[in-house]
């Protein structure tokens, strides 16, 4: 029997343990703050160590210097005891390799995305899409190994046979392989973007007697451009931050060149070189790695924020 005959009912006191629930909420909030703490930690530690670096090496020398040779001095009184820390060759090297990668990945990724979203049957799409995504799941150390021990020697031999001198640590080898790695990034994001273009727009064009490919080129792609641009920016950010491929295949020669057949080095490869092995933590050499890390972090962050903004704007347009 329900106690409907009681005069009043208690609406104030429940059985739940409020203290415990407050504690749970506290823990939940704390956990979601971990992500913020990580970001703050990254920014603080990079800024702090980079600041110590810039106390020794002027910021302008770092940003505009064209000479990179971070030797540690053998004797304190040695001339140029701290070495040269001009980051320009590293930045150009990074850009060169990323550019080659984008040259490979953009056409392959975009054409794959177009084919998958516009032409492929549902069945082959369900098969091909995950297959392409395997490319993104393979550890980068595997790409690095393949680039250094298979692709680079092949390019060298191929260059020799046509009389070209290809460095065994050429930017081309690293860039090519890196390009393959970021294909799925471009293809799956662009695929989503292309699918979001309303069918009505296609119907309008097809109804006027345009062929399917004309519709894609003249109607679908132009309206998907912002989203595609976003996906390309994300891919570029990924290429710039990629480490293992360049560590293994690009080497450490800080050449200021635009020739893809020569060896160049990148920001990430230098960070690894500077920080592995024995190190004294206070030298300009090790601290310079954090200055490079700061450059890398800021660059990729800006690219991401811009890319995510573009993609979001684009999605809202069709919501």
């Amino acid at each position, binding site marked *: 029997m329900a106690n409907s005959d009681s005069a009043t009912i208690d609406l104030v006191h*429940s059985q*739940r343990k409020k203290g415990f*629930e407050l504690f*749970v*909420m506290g*823990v939940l*909030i704390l*956990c*979601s*703050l971990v*992500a*913020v703490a*990580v*970001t703050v*930690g990254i920014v603080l*530690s*990079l800024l702090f160590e980079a600041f110590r670096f810039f106390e020794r090496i002027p910021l302008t020398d770092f940003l505009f210097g064209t000479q990179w040779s971070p030797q540690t001095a053998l004797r304190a009184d040695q001339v140029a005891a701290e070495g040269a820390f001009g980051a320009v060759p590293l930045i150009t090297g990074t850009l060169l390799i990323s550019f080659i990668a984008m040259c490979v990945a953009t056409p*392959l*990724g975009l*054409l*794959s995305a177009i*084919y*998958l979203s516009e*032409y492929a049957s549902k069945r082959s799409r369900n098969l*091909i899409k995950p*297959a392409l995504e*395997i490319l993104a*799941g393979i*550890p980068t150390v*595997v790409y690095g*190994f*393949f680039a*250094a*021990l*298979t692709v680079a020697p092949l390019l060298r031999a191929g260059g020799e046979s046509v009389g070209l001198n290809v460095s065994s640590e050429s930017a081309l080898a690293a860039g090519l392989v890196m390009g*393959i790695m970021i294909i799925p990034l471009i293809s799956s994001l662009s695929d989503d973007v292309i699918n979001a273009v309303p069918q009505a727009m296609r119907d309008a064009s097809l109804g006027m007697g345009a*062929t399917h*490919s*004309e519709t894609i080129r003249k109607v679908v792609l132009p309206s998907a451009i912002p989203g595609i641009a976003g996906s390309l920016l*994300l891919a570029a950010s*990924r290429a710039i*931050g*990629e*480490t293992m491929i360049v*560590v*293994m295949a690009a080497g450490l020669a800080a050449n200021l060149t635009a020739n893809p057949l020569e060896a160049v080095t990148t920001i*990430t490869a230098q*960070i*690894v070189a500077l*920080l*592995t092995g024995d190190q004294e*933590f206070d030298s300009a050499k090790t601290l310079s790695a*954090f200055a490079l*890390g700061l450059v890398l*972090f800021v660059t*990729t*962050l800006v690219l*991401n*924020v811009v890319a*995510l903004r573009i993609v979001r704007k684009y999605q809202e347009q069709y919501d």
Partner: protein
Amino acid sequence: MTDFITPSSQLKSRKSAEKRFQWYGRGAIFASLAFLVVMVGSILYKGSGAFTTTDVAIVVDLGPEAVDPANPQDARFEKIVKDALKARFPEATKRADRRKLYGLVSNDAGFELERFVLANPDKLGGEVRVWFRASDDFDILLKGTVDRTVDESERRLSDQEIGWIDTLLADGDVKRGFNWSFFTNGDSREPELAGILSALVGSALTLLVCFCFSFPVGILAAIYLEEFAPKNRFSDIIEVNINNLAAVPSIVFGLLGLSMLLNTFGMPRSSPLVGGLVLSLMTLPTIIIAARASLRAVPPSIREAALGMGASPVQATFHHVAPLALPGIMTGTIVGMAQALGETAPLLMIGMVAFIVDVPQSILEPATALPVQIFLWADAPERAFLEKTSAAIIVLLLFLITMNLLAIVLRRRFEKRF
């Protein structure tokens, strides 16, 4: 009058443009997948050899003069092996020839004999036929990757060495078998003895730390953001933060680990503890994003049902919503762990690149991880390490495939719950 049936020449060219366009798409997909197949195929091809190994039988003298039965551990085992080799091929008299002769077996043959003697004290007292691991060059010759016809000066093995090997083969003193030691040994400077056990254990410990941190924190953060967070600036900041964190280059997390965990907090360098923590910070966004998606997929009627009968929001979430989202969360977590397993760069930053022979016993000891082992071996000059590197990659890929299959099965299994 217009003819609808016979295509005009202009239409024909438009039609062929259409065909061409489709072929570009097919070509792009084919090129991407072909690269994948070539890369994995070449690694499989190169690595398959590492799973077999070569042993040589040599008759060694374990008489009382060579090994004192009272103190067998004091014997000069390396010398015993060398003497046995000299006895087998007395024609090697010059020092250079002798060195080649000793090079037929692994550099560690002395230790192998010592282990054999200590394990079989009953065999002491006379001549005994003992199996030794063959050297890497010997092994490679048998695997057929060395071309015997090229000029002697361009080969690692001279005609004389090949002659010895052929003699051993003819006498039945060579055997091939599955390379168990690849899975039971730690790293070694000698490719024929190098194994991945210490790296595997290092990876396992690192992943364990990573899981223990990122799984609970990831789920709880996702629950807060999805079920409780008020819609305000503060929540927006956290959300944007997580999305951006997901795209920070992995090496930056390594820098964070180096500067914060190692230098500021003084945690042990090269340890799975630090490695796991760094990787968990990296996988956290993946887990949070996946967990939020599967929490969102739980129908609101479940929440209403629980709240409607007087469950508190915390009870409704932990009793009903979270258990239903768990399969999805697990899937996301496995994918995140697979990412962490393949990650190399941040581990280099915190010093997990050491040469580790012994299996790490705790998360505080220096250790390395499988992908780092691959990186180290890829750099080694010996040819036989090429094979080992590929084999280690195969093992790594097998683990990744298993994890991803598990994730797919989980997803399939629980997908149509609602």
